[in-house]
């Protein structure tokens, strides 16, 4: 699928000469604010969406925009600033007219992204992170953009360019220098392939027929929920919580005003399957959400779409609109939809016919981050029996509609409670639990959060029944898993395989040879050595939200460790001490190892800090952030040991280097001005 690049005003590439870019005119700011208010309303929880609108219009959030928002919504200036400083895609000073962000996952780096970045910066005469003096362009890195199967990739003003190489970089520099508007850039730059390399139970069937919803109208919520229960479907976002339990709990809770949220934040490095699902199977995902709303009795729904997938917004809005027109969203779903569905009216798949040709936008699924963080979710199930109350879920026609909320560059917002904070317009800081979202989530209302793939699977289970899903997989992990495969393999892309498939089988499928390590479930997941390839992808062995990154023999795994450690420092929300400070201490120690200055003592120290983070952090991010380090220390000790400066203790800083300033000031650089090493 090609991305629809809006015209000049929206991308900030208007006719104004870059050199005399004055502050945006107050009238324009007011206009943008008014338009956003008209579209989204004045509830304070919309403030983040308004800030994103300002950012998109001006490449930063102007002070006058903040003032306008504080005057019109019940939010303070400090709240706006707090959010702007939290989200990586929001800024208080202008970015370049062309704002270029290179994806900085290890899989991008393995394909030379750092060299390409250097090339681009040189060509453009710009320093990373600093807008060029004429305001034309800024270049920086960003966390994994979910294009690992067609890396290296970048975002320019929010739109994805994939398959970067030196030629592309040179051409991009020329396009920027000659101020070619984005919509006139070569369209194939913006092509994002789906790369569905293997379809199974779910992906094989592309037809949209809303049969899951028909089942709901014909058989009622109880019967469909019983099928989902029978299927044993577990959440695909990583934690693997039993979907039917969560839905039943929500259905049975007496409180009104329930909310259904589709977690499309897919920020786990190396995950991109949700991108493909939202591109090519959006109807099915939305059908799953609608089904869920019908069963639990929710009227309001959200898709929380990560900012990196902003290019999918128009497409998703179009799918929502089409479904509204068909009576599958909005008021009285089931009343007319029933007739529409029965008469066999095909809903159509809109713009996505390209899937089989492998052309279409992509994104990643967050994988392992959730594992520890979500263990506590299991407690919800304990509460379930206690709350067997009255059922007030709808079985007849029901009202339900969906809004899309954009994220703005924050991995933590994939964690369900941080996501809810973000939906409420705040910084994405994880909430304490209990209460669980399903009891008190969005605006304290019962909120059901599921992954994109979970909704899709639920829709198909409603159609085919519970046993259908159980026809594949293992006892504890029914059905199939959709995986995002990248790194050193011949055929990166999306693979749907039955749960229980071994790592080795998947490596064979994707054409990976002489494998040194596999990172399952993203930066937060598990690092497997070549001795562990018979382990199986299933909740009982290797739970995964979908990422599968392959590292060949030629790779230096310490580069992976450095990349992940930097990622977690960048993405820690900063709420709790162990993750906020511990992550930085770890990153610094890893850099110390990489520069050949570390000692055995430092390795011990890293273990200790990692253990602390795992045990004492507030949320799943901190719990899983040291995984890669602790596991490589255990399984690949030589990547550290061969770099140690001494077996004992070396200082954290280089004494001689610390004297550089003094040498410069005194104009000396003779041997006497250096410490003997």
């Amino acid at each position, binding site marked *: 699928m090609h991305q629809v690049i809006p015209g000049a005003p929206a991308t900030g590439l208007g006719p104004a000469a870059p050199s005399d870019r004055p502050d945006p005119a107050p009238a324009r700011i007011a206009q943008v604010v008014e338009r956003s208010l008209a579209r989204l309303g004045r509830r304070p929880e919309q403030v983040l969406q308004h800030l994103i609108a300002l950012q998109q219009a001006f490449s930063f959030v102007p002070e006058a925009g903040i003032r306008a928002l504080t005057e019109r919504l019940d939010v*303070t*200036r*400090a*709240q706006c*600033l*707090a959010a*702007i*400083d*939290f989200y990586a895609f929001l800024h208080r000073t202008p970015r370049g007219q062309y704002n270029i962000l290179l994806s900085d996952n290890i899989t991008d780096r393995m394909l030379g992204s750092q060299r390409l970045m250097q090339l681009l910066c040189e060509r453009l005469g710009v320093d990373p992170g600093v807008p060029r003096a004429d305001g034309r362009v800024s270049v920086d890195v960003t966390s994994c953009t979910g294009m690992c199967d067609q890396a290296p990739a970048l975002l320019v003003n929010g739109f994805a360019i994939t398959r970067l190489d030196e030629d592309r970089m040179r051409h991009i520099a020329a396009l920027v220098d000659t101020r070619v508007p984005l919509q006139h850039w070569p369209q194939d730059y913006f092509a994002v392939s789906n790369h569905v390399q293997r379809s199974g139970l779910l992906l094989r069937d592309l037809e949209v027929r809303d049969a899951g919803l028909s089942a709901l109208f014909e058989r009622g919520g109880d019967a469909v929920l019983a099928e989902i229960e029978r299927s044993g479907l577990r959440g695909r976002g990583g934690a693997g919580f039993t979907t039917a339990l969560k839905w039943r709990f929500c259905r049975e809770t007496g409180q009104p005003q329930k909310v259904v949220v589709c977690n499309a934040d897919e920020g786990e490095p190396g995950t991109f399957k949700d991108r493909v699902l939202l591109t090519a199977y959006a109807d099915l995902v939305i059908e799953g959400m609608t089904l869920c709303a019908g069963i639990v009795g929710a009227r309001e729904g959200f898709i929380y779409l990560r900012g990196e997938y902003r290019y999918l917004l128009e497409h998703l809005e179009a799918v929502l609109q089409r479904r509204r027109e068909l009576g599958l969203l909005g008021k009285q779903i089931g009343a007319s939809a029933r007739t529409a569905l029965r008469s066999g009216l095909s809903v159509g798949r809109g713009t996505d016919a390209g899937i089989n040709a492998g052309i279409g936008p992509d994104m990643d699924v967050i994988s392992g981050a959730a594992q520890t963080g979500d263990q506590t979710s299991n407690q919800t199930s304990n509460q379930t029996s206690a709350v067997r109350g009255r059922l007030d879920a709808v079985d007849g026609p029901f009202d339900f509609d969906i809004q899309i909320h954009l994220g703005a560059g*924050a991995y*933590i917002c994939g964690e369900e409670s941080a996501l809810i904070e973000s939906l409420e317009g705040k*910084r994405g800081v994880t909430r*304490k639990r*209990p209460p669980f979202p399903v009891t008190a989530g969005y605006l304290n209302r019962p909120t059901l959060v599921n992954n994109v793939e979970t909704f899709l699977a639920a829709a198909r289970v409603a159609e085919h029944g519970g046993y259908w899903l159980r026809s594949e997989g293992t006892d504890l992990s029914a059905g199939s898993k959709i995986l995002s495969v990248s790194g050193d393999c011949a055929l990166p892309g999306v693979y749907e395989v039955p749960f229980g498939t071994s790592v080795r089988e998947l490596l064979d499928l994707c054409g990976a040879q002489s494998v040194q390590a596999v990172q399952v479930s993203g930066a937060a997941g598990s690092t497997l050595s070549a001795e562990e390839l018979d382990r199986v992808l299933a909740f009982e062995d290797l739970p995964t939200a979908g990422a599968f990154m392959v590292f060949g023999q030629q790779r230096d795994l310490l580069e992976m460790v450095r990349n992940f450690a930097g990622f977690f*420092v*960048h*993405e*820690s*929300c*900063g*709420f*709790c*001490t*162990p993750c*906020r*400070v*511990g*992550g*930085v*201490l770890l990153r*610094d120690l890893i850099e110390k190892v990489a520069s050949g200055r570390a000692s055995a003592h430092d390795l011990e120290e890293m273990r*200790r*800090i990692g253990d*602390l983070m795992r*045990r*004492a*952090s*507030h949320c799943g991010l901190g719990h899983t952030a040291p995984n890669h380090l602790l596991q490589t220390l255990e399984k690949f000790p030589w990547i550290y040991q061969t770099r140690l400066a001494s077996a004992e203790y070396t200082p*954290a*800083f280089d004494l001689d280097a610390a004297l550089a300033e003094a040498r410069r000031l005194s104009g000396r650089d003779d041997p006497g001005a250096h410490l003997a090493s």
Partner: protein
Amino acid sequence: MAIVEGRFRLDGVEIPFQPGQTIMDAALAAAVYIPHLCHHPALLPHGSCRVCVVRVNGREVSSCTTPATAGLEVESETEALRALRVAILQMLFVEGNHVCPACERTGACELQAVAYHCGMLEPHFTHFFPRRELDASHPDLVLDLNRCILCERCVRASRDLDRKRVFAVAGRGLDSHLIVDSPTGRLGDSRLELTDQAAHICPVGAILLRQRAGDVGERHGFRVPIGERPYDRESISRVGDVATLVEES
């Protein structure tokens, strides 16, 4: 008399609790001290500092946010947990600029007092020496972010007790920092008043009251000589909020 919902055991000692109480609430009410910094009895539980970490059912949780439930076995004063707490405290020390001997809050500082209680002897980790601001624009108070530990007590007090929202935390990760809601971002231009609860709730020397000759009451605190301040004489585990709460109940 409050209804007792049940009892749990904290290091083997039976602790009664009422419906809705956390492990921390119940422990404090029973005059049993669990080290804590971001927790304050007058505020909603927060759970950010992690100093109150305890072990329940084989895993570590923050006692200030975990509901008490009947029959729970909670470990707190074990060597392993003490070591965790010390490491967390050391992280807080190296993250900011805490020069206790030169700090006006010394002896009355909860960070310092909890560190003494837990047996922290040195900061251990490499200091970050961050550059942070000092805001002296307010007539009655000074805000010195060098010592802020991001406990958000002031944020919560201003929002929930004073109903003003004067403080907020901005940014993320290590860049998280306290900001003030005012047109200039300065405390002097904010709505903070000396009578606000937020002005008196900081556990460390980040929000300090200014003093003038002849000040009495709280404001004369600094003239109490070092060595005679609350936690100089007795451990925070005996004279901190754990003691006040017992007096009240």
